[in-house]
């Protein structure tokens, strides 16, 4: 979904603030929700559905919440959606805690209605890695190989996906093949693991953000096979293909393909000298609250 969680490339959030001597948790309830999330969360849904529950927090609430508040929201959502508890039950538990006399014996009066479920299991058990590539429903052979030029498909699914908006429609190069993993888009919605290869795809900063960016910046994004399509035509003679890649292919034609492949080949990224410092675009400086202290926007014509 094109949700508020998909933040890559957005402006307006200001400087990155670093907290000295930061505690692991900032409040007791954070400590507690973290543990609950690990112990109970695994039993409520897989990690993909967990992430999707966070993404579905209404944008205004997402932005106003802290990290662990979002985890709390996700837990409540999944608990209700799983049918294990109702919203009324959660509300009732809150009211009971707000009553001073009842709060004290809350824990002691609770009767367990079911055996305690097993411990949080690591992700590996849920989602098999490369060695499991041959299991049912997976694609046994990788569609792409290292060095292949690909385009992140222009997909806008309303459900869960891990293809960030900022790469869609852009051309990159397969840098590594991580092996086969469950596809979040189906796994989050109970539609099966649909295991398929997932790749590290390298994109040049200029491809993603514009030609005013330095040549020697690259972004590597891990993308599943379904998020990608091959670039078959690299010359200017680009013919739009049938399955909706018109925009992307046009983009390929408009971005200089020079040296791309070489630059992103593993272990031999070529060093490109940048004659002038172009690290910041004027627009990205503008959102930096203390821009005047740290840098001066350069006028562009």
């Amino acid at each position, binding site marked *: 979904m094109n949700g508020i969680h998909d933040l890559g490339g957005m402006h307006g959030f200001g400087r990155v603030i670093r907290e000295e001597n930061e505690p692991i948790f900032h409040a007791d309830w954070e400590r507690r929700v973290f543990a609950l999330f690990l*112990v109970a969360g695994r039993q409520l849904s897989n990690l993909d559905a967990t992430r999707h529950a966070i993404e579905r927090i209404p944008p205004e609430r997402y932005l106003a919440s802290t990290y662990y508040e979002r985890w709390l929201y996700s837990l409540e959502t999944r608990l209700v959606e799983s049918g294990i508890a109702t919203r009324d039950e959660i509300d009732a538990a809150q009211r009971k805690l707000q009553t001073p006399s009842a709060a004290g014996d809350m824990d002691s009066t609770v009767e367990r209605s079911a055996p305690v479920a097993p411990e949080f299991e690591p992700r590996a058990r849920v989602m098999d890695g490369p060695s499991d590539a041959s299991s049912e429903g997976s694609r046994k052979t990788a569609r792409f190989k290292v060095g292949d030029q690909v385009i992140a498909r222009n997909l806008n699914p309303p459900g869960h996906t891990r293809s960030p908006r900022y790469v869609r429609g852009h051309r990159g190069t397969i840098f590594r093949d991580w092996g086969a993993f469950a596809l979040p888009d189906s796994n989050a919605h109970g539609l099966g693991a649909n295991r398929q290869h997932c790749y590290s795809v390298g994109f040049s900063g200029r491809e993603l953000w514009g030609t005013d960016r330095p040549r020697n*910046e690259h*972004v590597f994004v891990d993308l599943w096979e379904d998020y990608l399509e091959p670039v078959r035509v690299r010359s200017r003679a680009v013919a739009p293909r049938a399955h909706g890649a018109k925009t992307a292919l046009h983009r390929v034609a408009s971005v200089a393909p020079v040296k791309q492949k070489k630059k992103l080949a593993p272990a031999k990224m070529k060093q490109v000298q940048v004659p002038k410092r172009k690290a910041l675009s004027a627009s990205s400086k503008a959102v930096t609250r203390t821009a005047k202290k740290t840098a001066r926007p350069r006028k562009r014509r």
Partner: protein
Amino acid sequence: MSSDDHDHDHHAHNAPESGAALRVKALEAVLVEKGLVDPTRLDTLTDTYEHKVGPHNGARVVARAWVDPAYKKRLLADATAAIAELGFGGPQGEYMTVLENTPRVHNMVVCTLCSCYPWPVLGLPPMWYKSFAYRSRAVGDPRGVLREFGLELPADVEVRVWDSSAEMRYLVLPMRPQGSENLTEDELADLVTRDAMIGSATVEYPSKKASTTPESAA
């Protein structure tokens, strides 16, 4: 720390028995009642992530790689296995890749979609890593972000940003600082910071926190 400066991600820390604290208690009560949670396990779990797992684990990995070329080779070839050699592994560390910083290439790690992070080697992520500012800007303006961390990279250094959008988790292998040739593995591990292993800092020697006297000790 000045909490006034902090963004949205930060505002509700020390709120007394606030909405969130109450909701967590209620949620726990329901989860226990439904048999999904054994409350005695919760403390063990938080203790693990507060006291046992943390950047000191990653620092061991880095220091070993600095002093042992064969280990470094294994680490770069199969990070998950090499990290497991030192006894580290678990949730959010099942698939690891180590990114080596060199004089020509600087790596930094982000998760733009949530806050994926290599728990077994770095512990739980700091606020800044989870902040909207870092998640939104690291991919589009890495040099600008690094500058805010006080790291000014030369223009000819290539920047590679790794967006943890799938199950692979990344650990940056920082450059071993000049002048540290005579330090022991333990002493080297003490120099390695969390931020250097995310890629928002370099490793300094003498370390920035220490006195600025010349490295007479070395």
